[in-house]
């Protein structure tokens, strides 16, 4: 394969050469990626021009669906998504950089809390955010229950304003973690040099900005891709705001029967291709530069000490931003689940109740308790998070090796493009590919089984988690592993004793992230879950959509708390099991 060939450019010709083995590993990796992501996605995309491949039309080649996708309504959706994603990504990166600088480089208050808040934000799906916002803002909603009239804002929220707010909140944590990693590798000497030569704090920060440009651009690219592929907001807010977005157009195309997979395929292709410009921009600026370098020599940077007044202002600013992004949705959802008949103006005022919570496990609809689905979702989360973690580490190492090289660029484009693939495309693609007669008879027969759902969920999580890990993993100096090898450690021991400890926190949080993302994932779960094994997100969705929004919201809140409990347990185990030295390394590899 081309990539393996590039890597083995300076090989000897010995057939038992270990480097050949290394490139064999590369081939194996791409085989796995093909089965996992490439084949199913391509199976879907090819329908854009060749519907007959999977019996979705009579033509082997046609451009009619391309034209259809760009026609008035659907084309409007594509256009809207592009400009919203552009605005959101710039906003998210700006906010994230400011927050990251405040939290890591100044003495702003409550620092530990903000890091946790960012994680919570990262794990919260956008549909949950929208749910919270509407529960809070609607007439006779949560805000009204607390005595705050929000009627004036409700209408405004269901429009581009609300869309931008929620999508920026969703993109914020991605951008924050990437920029944080970049900042933490930035030694204090650069700012010091600027300050000495007369720059004020703001200007000195502007001076060092180009140094963390790789991190900023990476954050921009991923915010853009995540926003383009977001489904939750397009489906809820976008719909009600009469603001069509590409993902919703895609969904509409396949919601009718017969579904128009071909138009959906063209839209999906547009989503994927739209991520190429940000990557090109990023790689142009970065060239062969990599992220900062971590070793035993890295010191924690100095913090800027604000005086009391500015400190209070800065803290208030951070609180405000995080409240808007995270606090409001949580508040709305919690109140919505506690208020009986949310939105009903009753003679006796607003009632707070636990009725909905009692229905979560003993619901009025027979056979639709949350118990079994939640257990299944947790099991799924466990397996998927572990599988994704392993694959993501392998890919992340590959992504950061040889910066600027051909193989690295291909991997980078592939990963970011995959982030832009909406879940529903992956899900349907899995049906196409894994239901092919040849595949079921000669490769593997797993259609309509739990393993298939797991694979699809892993495929969904791997690209995002790989990019997430790439930054911190890239900060690990190669000489640490070399030193281990030279001083007597074999390959495995060297990795286990020198790389793994430095990545342990990143691995842990990556695992937790995928775990929670799996539990809340809806599109793939809905189309691929096997008979009688319905995940929690699907159960919750049927309640919200059809049966009983109050109980649905209560289920949402319960699931959220259950996820938090698992996070707590995982962190406790980590603390108990890992040596002290491991915990000295912060999540981005620097002692924080």
């Amino acid at each position, binding site marked *: 394969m081309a990539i393996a060939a590039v890597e083995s450019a*300076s090989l000897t010709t010995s057939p038992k050469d270990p480097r050949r083995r290394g490139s064999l590993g590369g081939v194996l990796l791409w085989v796995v990626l093909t089965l996992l992501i490439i084949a199913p996605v391509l199976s879907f995309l090819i329908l854009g021009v060749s519907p007959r491949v999977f019996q979705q039309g009579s033509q082997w080649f046609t451009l009619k669906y391309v034209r259809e996708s760009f026609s008035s309504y659907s084309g409007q959706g594509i256009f809207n998504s592009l400009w919203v994603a552009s605005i959101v990504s710039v906003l998210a990166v700006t906010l994230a950089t400011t927050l990251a600088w405040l939290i890591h480089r100044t003495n702003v208050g409550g620092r530990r809390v903000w890091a946790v808040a960012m994680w919570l934000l990262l794990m919260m799906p956008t549909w949950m955010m929208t749910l919270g916002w509407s529960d809070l803002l609607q007439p006779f909603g949560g805000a009204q229950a607390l005595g705050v009239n929000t009627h004036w804002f409700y209408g405004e929220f269901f429009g581009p304003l609300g869309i931008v707010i929620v999508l920026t909140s969703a993109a914020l944590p991605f951008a924050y973690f990437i920029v944080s990693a970049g900042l933490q590798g930035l030694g204090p000497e650069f700012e010091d040099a600027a300050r000495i030569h007369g720059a004020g704090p703001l200007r000195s920060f502007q001076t060092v900005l180009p140094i963390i440009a790789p991190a900023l651009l990476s954050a921009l690219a991923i915010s853009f891709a995540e926003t383009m592929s977001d489904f939750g907001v397009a489906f809820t807010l976008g719909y009600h705001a009469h603001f069509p977005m590409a993902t919703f157009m895609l969904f509409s195309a396949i919601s009718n029967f017969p579904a128009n997979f071909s138009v959906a395929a063209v839209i999906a292709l547009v989503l994927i291709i739209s991520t190429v410009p940000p990557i090109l921009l990023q790689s142009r600026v970065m060239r062969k530069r990599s992220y900062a370098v971590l070793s*035993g020599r890295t010191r924690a940077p100095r913090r800027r000490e604000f005086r009391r007044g500015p400190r209070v202002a800065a803290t208030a600013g951070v609180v405000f931003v995080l409240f808007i992004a995270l606090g409001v949705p949580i508040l709305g959802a919690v109140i919505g689940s506690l208020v009986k008949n949310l939105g009903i103006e009753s003679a006796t005022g607003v009632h707070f109740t636990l009725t909905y919570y009692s229905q979560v496990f003993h619901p009025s609809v027979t056979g639709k308790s949350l118990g079994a689905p939640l257990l299944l979702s947790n099991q799924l989360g466990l397996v998927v998070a572990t599988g994704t973690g392993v694959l993501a580490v392998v890919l992340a190492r590959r992504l950061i090796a040889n910066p600027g090289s051909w193989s690295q660029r291909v991997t980078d484009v592939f990963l970011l493009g995959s982030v832009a693939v909406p879940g529903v495309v992956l899900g349907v693609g899995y049906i196409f590919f894994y239901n092919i007669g040849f595949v079921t008879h000669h490769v593997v027969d797993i259609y309509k089984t739990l393993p298939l759902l797991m694979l699809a969920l892993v495929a969904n999580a791997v690209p995002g988690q790989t990019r997430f890990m790439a930054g911190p993993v890239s900060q690990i100096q190669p000489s640490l592993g070399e030193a281990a090898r*030279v001083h007597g*450690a*074999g390959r495995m021991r060297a990795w286990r004793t020198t790389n793994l400890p430095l990545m342990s926190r990143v691995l842990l949080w990556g695992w937790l992230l995928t775990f929670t993302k799996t539990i809340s994932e809806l599109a793939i779960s809905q189309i691929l879950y096997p008979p009688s094994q319905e995940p929690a997100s699907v159960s919750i969705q049927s309640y919200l959509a059809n049966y009983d929004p109050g109980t649905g919201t209560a289920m949402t809140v319960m699931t959220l708390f259950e996820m938090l409990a698992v996070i707590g347990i995982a962190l406790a185990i980590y603390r108990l099991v890992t040596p002290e030295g491991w915990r000295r390394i912060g999540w981005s590899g620097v002692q924080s």
Partner: protein
Amino acid sequence: MERGSVVNKSARRATSVSIRGLTKRFGVKSALDDVSIDIAPGTFLVLLGPSGSGKTTLLRCLAGIERPSGGTIAIDGEQVAGPKTFVPPERRGLAMVFQDYALWPHLSVRKNVAYPLATSSLAKGDRKSRCDDLLERVGISHLSERFPNELSGGEQQRVALARALAAEVGLILFDEPLSNLDADRREQLRIEIATLTREVGATAVYITHDQSEAFALADQIGVLNQGRLIQLDAPETIYRHPTNAFVARFTGVAGEFPVRVLGEKEPNRVEVALPFASGYAIGASTTEKLGPEANVRLFVRAVGVSLVAPSHGSGVCGVVRDVAFNGHGYDHVVDVGDGFSLTKIYAASRFERAQNVKVCFDPSSCFVMDSSREA
């Protein structure tokens, strides 16, 4: 693939190294080109060269971190790298001190030093006492429970040194270990490296681009340029009889000028006319057969230049441009006309800036070489 047998690590026994025809290519670029070196046991070999000369690549090939494209490497007679062989680093029985220290940030100083002992056959108690000994020897016992990022650069490099000594291997590699240290630490640590390595009797391969460091440490110096080994000799030989213009330049010249050969005086001595002093001729050494019209340059070692007052009879006229006190005398920069100058000219007494002086040359420290042959 044949794996070489594990080099016996349990006894400290200086290792011999034999490098034959070593080549390494990165794409079309040749980082190492047919380098051959034999290192006798217990030798302290310094590889000297500018960046890009291939010295780092050679060291990494020796360590097993890099695979050569061609040639062989043998340690103690056992081939560790060759067309059909590649012994991985952990089985080569060596140790290495890195330029960036490469201490593991999640392990304490003690654990860093003890790392190479994990695969040894020592009992636990013996390992502990070995660690204690080493920490004591390099002077950092009081830091044993600290973590690397709590230490200064010099302290970290000492830990790295202790770690390299821990496994009692016969071959220690040094990758520019002093280049990240401050000047005063550098001197201290250089002495420790020099003494400790000889104390334990190991063979050392040390790379640097700093020629004074090389001369201070080495039993043998290998000068590399653009992937080729130019000269491999004792330091004195390299200093006094550089093979070509590159070696001469790289090992410290006060100045170099294009000159006209006037004639051969004795075997290996010629007379040359200086471009900036018409009529003035000096003697210079040469190892080549040079005709009168050859394209030659004169390389002058600082040690062969002396300054005298202008009233002195012989010598080239010059003007002092800069003077610096070096503790036991003065180093001068002297302009000799036509844009030529001489640097680092030592005099026990001080000549002021803009002062006129006379410059005298000692033929044994002046070399004439055909500068078209630099490789």
